């Protein structure tokens, strides 16, 4: 167990705001949104309350992942500026509370998903939670610079889960949505890790910029962006989405590629001069929101 001393007297129960912060609400918003889009893009919709419950379960599952991630990474978080003020490294909460909260939330979300929608959706939710916690957080993240590539699969599950919650089965379009997020994750995280590289290096996390250097990372960002753009446009030629989606996804992906090319061309070693990387990181969040919004709009307007 890490030797993190609590600045808070042990007698104090955790504040509810800190318990909420364990769930990483900002990360959860993208997960919830992509899950909702997966559900709304499905050819058949469940009753409103069951759809709401499915999205609630995806949110709770993501919250469980956040809590268990922070429980496991308390020492790493304490050594990084970006995460040092989180409830556990700041000593405002004891680790057992975080562990119990994370496990309880995860089990509850899976059971509720199974009871309300389908056990296939519940199984996918359970797999995504276990994959994020065990495969990504515990196994890959501290060991390999490919942590984000493989671990990104965990964040790609929500649209698939949303679709399965609505229809009860897996189809080609949600698998493509899975692939899009899977390929989107490396450029998104590597852009961030380029300008917070010293943080990851100090924490001993073998992120690609730390291990392979900025230039190699920039090349890989561009290569993954190419693959992601191809996957993003693919639903249109495959007949899984209409021309509205086709046109918008092509424009959005083109802008993404332009920004990724600017990153690839940047030589700056200093984070202060990493404007292209910061622009790509910010745009990547907008890109995913916009792409999934257009997919749902295309489905409903068709």
């Amino acid at each position, binding site marked *: 167990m890490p030797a993190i001393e609590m600045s808070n007297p042990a*007698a*104090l*129960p*955790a*504040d*509810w705001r800190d318990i909420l912060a364990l769930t990483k609400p900002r990360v959860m918003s993208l997960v919830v949104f992509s899950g909702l889009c997966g559900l709304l893009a499905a050819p058949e919709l*469940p009753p409103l*309350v*069951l759809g709401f419950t499915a999205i609630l379960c995806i949110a709770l599952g993501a919250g469980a992942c956040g809590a268990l991630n922070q429980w496991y990474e308390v020492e790493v978080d304490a050594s990084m500026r970006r995460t040092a003020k989180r409830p556990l490294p700041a000593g405002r909460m004891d680790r057992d509370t975080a562990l119990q909260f994370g496990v309880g939330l995860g089990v509850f979300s899976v059971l509720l998903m199974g*009871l309300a929608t389908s056990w296939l959706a519940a199984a996918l939710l359970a797999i995504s939670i276990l994959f994020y916690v065990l495969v990504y957080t515990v196994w890959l993240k501290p060991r390999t610079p490919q942590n984000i590539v493989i671990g990104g699969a965990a964040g790609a599950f929500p649209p698939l889960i949303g679709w399965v919650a609505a229809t009860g089965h897996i189809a080609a379009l949600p698998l493509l949505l899975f692939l899009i997020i899977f390929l989107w994750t490396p450029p998104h995280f590597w852009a961030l890790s380029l300008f917070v590289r010293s943080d990851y290096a100090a924490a001993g996390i073998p992120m690609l910029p730390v291990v392979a250097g900025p230039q190699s990372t920039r090349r890989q960002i561009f290569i993954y962006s190419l693959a992601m753009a191809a996957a993003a446009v693919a639903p249109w030629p495959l007949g899984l989405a209409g021309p509205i989606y086709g046109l918008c996804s092509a424009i959005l992906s083109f802008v993404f590629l332009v920004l990724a090319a600017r990153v690839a061309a940047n030589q700056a070693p200093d984070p202060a001069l990493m404007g292209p990387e910061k622009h790509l990181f910010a745009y990547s969040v907008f890109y995913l929101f916009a792409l999934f919004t257009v997919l749902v709009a295309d489905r409903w307007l068709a």
Partner: protein
Amino acid sequence: MTELEDEVVRRQRERARIMAWLLGGFVVLLFFITIAKTGINW
């Protein structure tokens, strides 16, 4: 009561109140899930 004990009680009350709201919401949600699953139309 000391300042620390006051803070403990305040936090316990806040958490108990939030837990009560969440449990109440869960009961309502279960009710509507049951209605939806049994296919009863209002």
